[in-house]
């Protein structure tokens, strides 16, 4: 048994200052390797810059759909349809199948994470087998879209949906995407818009990000550690929307979710042992929902990054997730129906 002196959540806070370093250690070299491999496919798409300032969706608002655990509970795609919302919809790749299954075709999908095997599952993995499922229980453990409970069947459905609708979808494809994701995107006919991850400060001498930009000519966007924040940033700096609503951006788990069903469960157990997991999870009270949520070191960091980024945004940010831990200065927490009512076609003509 490992002796961890930290109490509940304390270790998560201690790890916060290390998170950027931890992320770089995990992904830095892979990002560069993938960018090099993907250069063979740059000609199959355009630069994300081509979408800069383009009027996408009606009006001056957009909605981000990310894949936090509130997604299946609050069903924002259904709310979008019921409201007849015509503004832009930006979906994290992890929420894409949910949107399509709900009859919502996003105006832009966003993908970043370079994981070699997991991310392609969101787009349908044509090479998925039962054996591979046994090797990685990540999707079966998550408190996410229920479709993933039947993984092979889900995969087949997603393959079919993307094969059918892919050509109608623009995707902001990171140059550090895995070969599996790039291949799948090409297979579906999605309209590719390449962008570079912001790995370090591009204005600093010796910047790797600057080198990538120089080499491939694509812009670099600060993703704030995750695809949900990247999607919000796209709404702000790329589509230049004045109002950006977030849905599915929980950055947390619902109280009562077993640790086993959290993203980094196995890693956490490896690090501190099952008996010390409390030290890695932080409970936060959301007064807007009058409910507790809890988060892990990575999502706690995503929250901190977002809160740091939001003051510099040109857009006004509305968190319409109706759950989770993202609230603070610069963020208006609002029920999603209210936001959509404000930005309906009839309101826009006033």
């Amino acid at each position, binding site marked *: 048994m490992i002796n961890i002196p930290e109490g509940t959540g304390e270790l998560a806070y201690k*790890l916060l200052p*290390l*998170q*950027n*370093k*931890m*992320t*770089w*250690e*995990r*992904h*830095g070299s892979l*990002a560069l390797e993938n960018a090099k491999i993907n250069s063979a496919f740059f000609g199959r798409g355009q*630069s994300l*810059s081509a979408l*800069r300032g383009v009027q996408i969706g009606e009006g001056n608002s957009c909605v981000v759909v990310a894949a936090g655990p509130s997604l299946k509970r609050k069903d924002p795609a259904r709310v979008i349809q019921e409201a007849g919302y015509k503004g832009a919809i930006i979906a994290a790749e992890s929420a894409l199948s949910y949107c399509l299954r709900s009859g919502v075709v996003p105006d832009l999908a966003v993908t*970043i*994470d370079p994981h070699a095997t997991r991310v392609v599952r969101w787009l349908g993995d044509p090479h998925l087998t039962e054996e591979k499922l046994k090797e990685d229980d990540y999707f079966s453990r998550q408190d996410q879209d229920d479709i993933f409970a039947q993984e092979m069947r889900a995969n087949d459905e997603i393959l079919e949906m993307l094969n059918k609708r892919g050509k109608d979808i623009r995707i902001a494809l*990171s140059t*550090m995407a895995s070969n599996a994701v790039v291949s799948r995107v090409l297979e579906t006919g999605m309209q590719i818009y390449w962008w570079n*991850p*912001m*790995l*370090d*400060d*591009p*204005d600093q001498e010796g910047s790797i*990000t*600057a080198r990538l*930009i120089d080499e491939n*000519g*694509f*812009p*670099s*966007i*600060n*993703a*704030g*550690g*995750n*695809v949900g924040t*990247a999607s919000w*940033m796209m709404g*702000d*700096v*790329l589509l230049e929307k004045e109002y950006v609503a977030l849905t599915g951006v929980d950055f947390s788990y619902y109280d009562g979710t077993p640790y086993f069903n959290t993203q*980094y469960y196995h*890693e*956490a157990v*490896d*690090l501190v042992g099952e008996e010390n997991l409390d030290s890695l999870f932080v409970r936060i009270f959301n007064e807007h929902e009058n409910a507790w949520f809890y988060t892990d*070191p*990575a999502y706690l*960091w*995503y929250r901190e*990054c977002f809160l*740091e*980024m939001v003051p*510099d*945004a040109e857009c006004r940010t509305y968190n319409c997730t109706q759950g989770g831990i993202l609230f603070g200065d610069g963020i208006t927490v609002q029920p999603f129906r209210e936001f959509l009512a404000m930005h309906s076609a009839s309101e826009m003509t006033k």
Partner: protein
Amino acid sequence: MNDLLKGNFQTKKSVSGVEDQESIEARFEREALKKLGGSISFVKKKKVKWAADPDN
């Protein structure tokens, strides 16, 4: 009594309780670096750098 507890040989490496604690923390950080972390880095005070805009 303290002289008896010192023993009758010199160790090649000096032994320090503080150094052991630092090693544990360094080891923990190294393991955390391998296991945890986000999807992509975060850069403070930067939003975007457009390739075609040298002033951005």
